[in-house]
């Protein structure tokens, strides 16, 4: 069976399953710049997952993963950093020529996306997960430094800074699932290092072959999306007692 057929089956599956309708949304960053995203609400209330794209793609690279996670019971938000996809406008029109200015704004854009996600009326705001790809890996880790309600990370083909490493080393309650492809430059070693630093006993790394970079792996290896969903189901439960009750 070809990869294309498998992907078509995957899309047909998630498109036909019972779930609420996805919708394109806009929300403001702290400086007022309007970011565009796609929100996939869960039928029942549940945790929220933010998808942070890589710097050579936009939120559409996560379309299939978002549908699979949503079918599995999660609220999902994918969004475009300013200068990408639907978030082009004003002074931010092209990431390649405005890299420094865009990267500087990335943490604030992530915070705005998390704020939007957590404020949806189907989202358990204290039960969040984040997927980050490539340059989004460090953004995901830095977001978990700022937001303790992020309970788990899925990191695809990327690295982090020294303070990101220190955070991972100190985060006993932050299980991490890292994925990279062996031939993808420094990405495998970066992911292995991050997962190796993790203080959580369940953190693990998955190495692929000839799978490409970050979200490309989702398209080239049909099982990666399923593995990510299973990871979230184990580490960010949609029901039951993955979290202590909200006493206060």
């Amino acid at each position, binding site marked *: 069976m070809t990869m294309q057929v498998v992907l078509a089956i995957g899309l047909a599956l998630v498109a036909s399953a019972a779930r609420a309708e996805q919708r394109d949304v806009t929300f403001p960053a702290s400086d007022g710049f309007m970011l565009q995203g796609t929100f996939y609400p869960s039928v029942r209330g549940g945790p929220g997952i933010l998808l942070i794209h890589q710097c050579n793609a936009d939120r559409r690279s996560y379309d299939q993963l978002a549908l699979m996670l949503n079918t599995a019971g999660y609220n999902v938000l994918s969004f475009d950093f300013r200068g990408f996809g639907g978030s082009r406008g004003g002074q931010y029109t092209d990431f390649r020529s405005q890299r420094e200015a865009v990267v500087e704004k990335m943490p604030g854009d992530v915070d705005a996306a998390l704020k939007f996600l957590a404020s949806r009326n189907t989202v358990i*705001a204290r039960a969040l997960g984040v997927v980050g790809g490539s340059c989004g890996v460090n953004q995901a880790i830095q977001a978990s430094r700022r937001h303790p309600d992020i309970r788990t990370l899925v990191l695809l083909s990327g690295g982090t800074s020294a303070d990101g490493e220190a955070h991972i080393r100190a985060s006993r309650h932050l299980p991490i699932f890292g994925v990279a492809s062996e031939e993808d430059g420094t990405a495998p070693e970066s992911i292995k290092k991050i997962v190796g630093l993790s203080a959580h006993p369940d953190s693990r790394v998955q190495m692929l072959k000839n799978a490409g970079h970050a979200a490309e792996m989702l398209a080239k290896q049909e099982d990666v999306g*399923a593995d990510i969903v299973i990871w979230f189901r184990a580490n960010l439960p949609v029901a039951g007692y993955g979290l202590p*009750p909200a006493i206060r």
Partner: protein
Amino acid sequence: MRRRICIVAVPAVLLVAAIAWAPAPAASQTSASAVTFHKDVLPVLQKNCQSCHRPGQIGPFSMLTYKETRPWAKAIRQAVVTRAMPPWFADPRYGHFNNDRSLKQAEIDLIASWVDAGAPEGNPADAPKPVEWPEGGWQIKPDVAFELPPYPVPAKGIIEWERIAFPAPFKEDTWVTSVEILPSEPAVVHHLCFGFQKHRETTPYGVYQWMEVPRDQNGNMLKVDGTTTGPRKGIVLSRKAGSTEVMRRPGSPDFFHEGTNEFCYLPGLAYEDYRPVDAGMFVPAGSDMIVSLHYTTTGLAVVDKTRIGFTVSKSAPKKKFLPQDGAEGENPPVARQQANASLAIPPFADNHPGPVAMIDFMKDVELVWFRPHAHVRGKSVRYTLIHPDGREETVLYVPNYNFNWQLTYRTSIPIKKGSKMRVQFTYDNSARNKYNPDPSAWVRYGGQSWEEMGTPNMGFLVNQDEDVTNAIIER
């Protein structure tokens, strides 16, 4: 508030059970190249997986068709090879359970070889007939359905155990032969149990009632007395269904919920079904249904709308169901309460034994299910049957108790008068327990999930004409 729905078809559960008794394919009968979804894998999925893995159920994806299953093939392989799925926690060295849904090694090998071969579809003509699952999300096909009033669960705060009474949803003498409880918001339900009792003039209908439980800032009970629902005397709080106004008065509750562990929803628990063993619970006309509710907060305000479905019989089954009265009955086992009150799990203890429960059997009974219950620090539980001659036999050992999968282990064990059952829970308060909210805390007995308990919960059958007064005594 309640409604009747019409009845009867061949229960899908029985169909599934029939499929379940079909012989498992032997690994030697298949080769990797010959294994296909329709011919080989689908029968295994129908038998063991589809009850949860279909639209509207708890499974994260559907396994009804090849198209729905194929994208998850590798994840399925991983789950079955590691025996993470299907969820089943009984140590296979002990006991025999007729609802054991763990896969046989030949079935695991078959799925693994199918995935390793590229998960081929095969010929749809080879597929078994689809299982006819009941509509409406049910696992059973109920003859009678009852809807509890919508219950608004706040985003934050502590919700004590509450109870509420209704007239039983049967107009005449009825035998209940199976029960399924379906919360609309399972993430906020710690338990939802009910039982039947003769109506009393003092029992109000449609009024939630609970006791005020003094707690510290961390939510722990200030006075641990071994009961789960607070003091039997103190401040009684009540609220009419549909109202937000809470009334307070000193005194005792108008009604208790003795016997309300007869039927329960617990995380991971599917339903209770006595039809395969030709048994049921007699509910006389005019009975009350006493519901014990324990909701918990998740951070998201929701409204739970729970449905309860029954299959019923107008004629008496061969045997009747005998519940093990819980600790809140009118004759609570005092020694057990005292033992519960002594539970104190030290910080970081990874294998702390709880107080032993001892149950005496004063008459011959047939034990038909276990439903062990502890909270998030529960680690293991062992049921040891002590025969009248003193011989000891482990009849259930759950080495890895999981709060999110509180299964019923169905069995058939004849127990002779003079036997005893010893039940021992252990607890893991270490940081290695991923569900532990605070390894540094002392943990004592209580009804909230951050407190602990260890409840044996067993079900028994006796002949219809048997006098069961004081048949089972929990000490």
